[in-house]
């Protein structure tokens, strides 16, 4: 009997240890401007609005101010980062490193500089910053200066606005109401986008909230994409037919014009 109780206790302990210290009972109530993004022919990117409030049973506690952090994470997958080097006078890819998992899109918005809003331990636990959202285990075995490749990945993706860090952009009113705007670029990958919200005090996460946005191709885009992947032969022949018809059509049209 005692043994069973001990087992139950052992099972219960880790979960209770994971619960963030939340003496004030502050929790997040939040919503998104849209849960579904359709990529159609004239898709040029999209903007999502994350809004919400902090619900509390007691008056706003004093001490460290409340901060809000919002992250949007696109589907992840393995990547290869290659580096060019001069060999025989020409520049070619030489060293390469495999990153086991990196999101195709990652945006962070916060109400204060991230270093103030989140402590290092909390960041490690919740994987909030861009480097911590990338899984790069074992890359040091592939190249001597592996971290340089990781930096290059982040730099390239930031240049293309696929990784965005925008500190102090979350608007927070009276430590209660907040909104964050996140711009999604035109080169979105299909899949589920995970939206996370954190409220912190003194760098410690008090509560978090998660939502999912589905990004899907729609209409003609959907049809073309599906056909290309499910019926590649028919798709290839159709592309061909289109090309031949266009070529012949133009020729015939110009023939008529000449007459």
């Amino acid at each position, binding site marked *: 009997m005692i043994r069973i109780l001990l087992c139950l206790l052992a099972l219960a302990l880790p979960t209770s240890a994971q619960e963030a210290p939340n003496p004030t009972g502050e929790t997040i109530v939040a919503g998104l401007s849209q849960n579904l993004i359709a*990529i159609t*022919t*004239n*898709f*040029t*990117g999209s903007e999502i609005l994350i809004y919400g409030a902090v619900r509390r049973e007691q008056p706003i506690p004093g001490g460290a101010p409340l901060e809000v952090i919002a992250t949007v994470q696109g589907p992840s*997958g*393995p*990547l*290869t*980062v*290659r*580096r*060019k*080097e*001069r060999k025989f006078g*020409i*520049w*070619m*890819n030489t060293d*390469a490193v*495999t990153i*086991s998992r990196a999101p195709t899109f990652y945006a962070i918005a916060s109400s204060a500089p991230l270093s103030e809003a989140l402590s290092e331990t909390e960041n490690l636990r919740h994987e909030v910053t861009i480097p911590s959202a990338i899984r790069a285990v074992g890359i040091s075995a*592939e190249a001597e200066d592996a971290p340089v*490749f990781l930096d*290059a*990945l982040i*730099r*390239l*993706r930031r240049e293309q606005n696929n990784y965005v860090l925008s500190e102090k952009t979350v608007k927070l009113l009276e430590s209660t109401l907040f909104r964050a705007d996140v711009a999604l670029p*035109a*080169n*979105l*990958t299909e899949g589920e986008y995970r939206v996370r919200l954190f409220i912190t005090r003194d760098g410690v996460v008090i509560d978090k909230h998660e939502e999912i946005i589905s990004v899907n*191709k729609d209409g*003609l*885009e*959907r049809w*073309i*994409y599906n056909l*290309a*992947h499910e019926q*590649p*032969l028919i*798709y*290839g*022949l*159709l*592309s*061909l037919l*289109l*090309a*031949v018809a*266009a*070529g*012949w*059509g*133009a*020729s015939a049209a*110009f023939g008529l014009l000449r007459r």
Partner: protein
Amino acid sequence: MQLYLPIAELSVNAFALLGLGGIVGILSGMFGVGGGFIITPLLFFMGIPPAVAVATGANLVVASSVSGVLAQLKRKAVDFRMGLVLLAGGLIGSAIGIWVFAWLTTLGQIDLFVQLSYVLFLGLVGAMMFKESLGALLRARKPGAPIRRAHVHYAVHKLPLKMKFRASGLYISVIPPMLAGASVGFLSAIMGVGGGFIMVPAMIYLLGMPTKVVVGTSLFQILFVTAFTTVMHAVTSQTVDMVLALLLIIGGVIGAQIGSKIGVKLRAEQLRILLALMVLAVCLRIALGLLLTPDELYSIAPGRLP
């Protein structure tokens, strides 16, 4: 107007693509080249993934060569028999090329290989054509200069499997045209080009075909080889983007008709010297890209290392 491309998965300006197609179409009609060697690098610069650019480039070349072949057929400038022999070689070459393309992509060396092939072939062909056509132009100015013999017998004429090509006025072995066709088919798959810039000089200098049937016959062969390449790329790697192709094609077919009219008005030597200069310019541009220190040393590719 921005348009989202379903396979390339990015948004591009529709009018830029129409214009790009138009320029390539004009070149196609003027010189009997598919224009793939211009469009594929330009698509790279626009940020289209190389695999999509190569496969879609092949699809575009199909459209512009249909348009071109029809224009040439009316002028009876197609040697069908020669075209079929070249085509047989072309299909074999293309199948090998598709396989090599997939293999080099996994090694991460496809870009380098494509660029090196461009530099090598464009450089060689451009220089050869420039020298020859400049010589021809100078000879034409000096009427007293000796005229080259129309018919010279090389080692090529000693090979077995001879065949009569009436439209070209040739009686030669099928081996050289088969090999020429195969190498062009290979390049078509690797570089997303029709291969006209190799085919036209090969027909003139290697096979000794008369210039009047060269453009039509090369377009005929290119049409079928690129059609095969398009379907193969669509099946093996799903990289043909229909929306991208359609935009380029609309511009391309209109351009091709305009181009073939301009082509009729220019003299053959002038036409060849222009083509040579253009080929050399593209070659130089790509060579500089390989030799100068790039702005960005790192690149990202989806998937793991093999």
